């Protein structure tokens, strides 16, 4: 069957427009829907009072603190490992079997679903090492999960630092480590930060890996070994058990706004960084 190419072009154009419109509409709709129902609940009091009656009333204060502590510890564990790996891969070795294995391992780790991380964290940290449901179990699990992101972005950031920066440093008599710490890392910092910030966003939104390792206690955590509930877990439990719809919407709104702001900051930073070196 022969179709007039001009007619086909016109039809395809309309269809592509339509599909794109629907896609963008659906994605926007999700955000607006949550914000529309959630924002009226969110106020200063909602953010600063403890949840009461399992979250039926009161605010989400302890879950905010739980989220911040859990994410912070995870980032503190994963960042040095990620940056160290990136430095080794880019500055201290040539492409060889070892780098291939390291890259392959990192890529595989990135593809593992969060429930597997949760399962693993539960059996190793919670039961075998007897940390129990705790911030340390949750943070270690999260750290493992975000490590590949930090490795990849740091590697790209370090690679994009122009080679002559290093040559100048060597010509001044610096050692390799001095060059890395005083020249390469400072120049690559915005790019590295982008990866770290993206990982913060991912940690905040994670549920499956956290619920089995950090538990879901609503108390304020007192040490790294106390269980803690994050905003995402709190939202999941409230929505699934139908505890309080208004509070569930409110938590979701706070969660989404936080993550969007974090991702926008990361995106801006990356944009600036790319502009600087290209």
């Amino acid at each position, binding site marked *: 069957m022969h179709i007039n190419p001009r007619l086909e072009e016109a039809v395809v154009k309309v269809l592509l427009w339509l599909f*794109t419109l629907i896609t963008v509409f659906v994605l926007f709709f999700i955000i607006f829907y949550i914000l529309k129902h959630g924002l009226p609940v969110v106020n200063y009091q909602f953010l600063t009072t403890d949840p009461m009656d399992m979250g039926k009333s009161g605010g989400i204060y302890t879950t905010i603190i739980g989220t911040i502590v859990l994410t912070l510890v995870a980032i503190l564990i994963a960042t040095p490992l990620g940056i160290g790996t990136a430095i080794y891969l880019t500055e201290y070795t040539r492409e060889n079997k070892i780098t291939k294995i390291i890259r392959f391992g990192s890529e595989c780790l990135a593809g593992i679903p969060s429930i597997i991380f*949760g399962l693993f964290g539960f059996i190793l940290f919670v039961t075998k090492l007897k940390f129990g449901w705790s911030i340390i179990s949750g943070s270690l699990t999260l750290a493992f999960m975000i490590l590949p992101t930090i490795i990849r972005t740091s590697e790209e950031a370090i690679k994009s630092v122009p080679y002559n920066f290093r040559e100048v440093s060597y010509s001044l008599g610096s050692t390799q480590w001095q060059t890395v710490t005083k020249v390469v890392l400072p120049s690559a910092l915005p790019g590295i930060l982008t990866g770290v910030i993206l990982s913060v966003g991912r940690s905040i*939104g994670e549920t499956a890996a956290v619920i089995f390792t950090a538990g879901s206690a609503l108390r304020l955590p007192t040490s790294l070994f106390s269980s803690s509930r994050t905003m995402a877990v709190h939202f999941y439990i409230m929505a699934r058990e139908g505890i309080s719809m208004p509070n569930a919407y409110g938590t979701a709104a706070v969660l989404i706004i936080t993550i969007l702001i974090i991702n926008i900051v990361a995106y801006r930073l990356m944009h600036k960084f790319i502009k600087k070196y290209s």
Partner: protein
Amino acid sequence: MTRLERNERLIKIALLVIACSAVSILAVITIFIFSEGTPIMFKYGFKSFLLGLDWYPSEQSFGLLPMIIGSLMVTCGSLIVGVPFGLACAIFLTEFSSRRLRHILKPIIELLAGIPSVVYGFIGVVILVPFIRENLGGPGLSVLAASIILGIMILPTIISISIDSLQAVPVSYREGSIALGATKWQTTKMVTLKAARSGIIASIILGMGRAIGETMAVIMIAGNAINIPNSVLAPVRTLTSNIALEMGYASGEHREALFATGVILFVIIMVLNTLANLTSAKRKA
């Protein structure tokens, strides 16, 4: 050897040790999941796990076939929903829209990849599930609901990677085709899409990996009943939800069987990752 040289040496060794962290973590996770999950599979036989229809952990009956089929159905469903929309969006933004629109929309779509999966699941519960129940029948919590929500969740992955691979096709290819009198769509169909094929396939495989590994959203909207669904409106349980739903209270052989579920999931994901790596390696070559 001076002190400075010795320090440099030590630093290099320390960095190598750190660099092995990702691989070691991968190894430890693999070993743990397999060592916890495979003994019970050997004990009752692989066949009873992979092909058994009944999951009654308290009666030593650990058939995972309904969950395996459930995972596959939901994943295929999500691709049926996500791939046409994702590809159309990517093609539109690279080939047919203005630069400006692309520069605005692409980052926005990528930002949306950060929305937590529980939020998608929640949207499914409050909007999609009641809609399906009232208009199409059935319990609403269904293969269809899970497919649609997962399809939406994989959109950012598919769109973003497809756009990158379409943009990587040299402009001269398109110019050559246009110069021969082809229309824009003919050029896209016969030249650009063919040149970007491996990247697009990789984006679909990655989206598939995300869909099959998704847990929380699926638990909220798929209904979680253990049976092989006879229609898209029937509820379904996936491998991931099987683990998450019962992990909280399982012990003994029941817990080992959940790890066996993890083993199967792990193997599927690894196969998909390797496929994605192979296709993108081919693209680079």
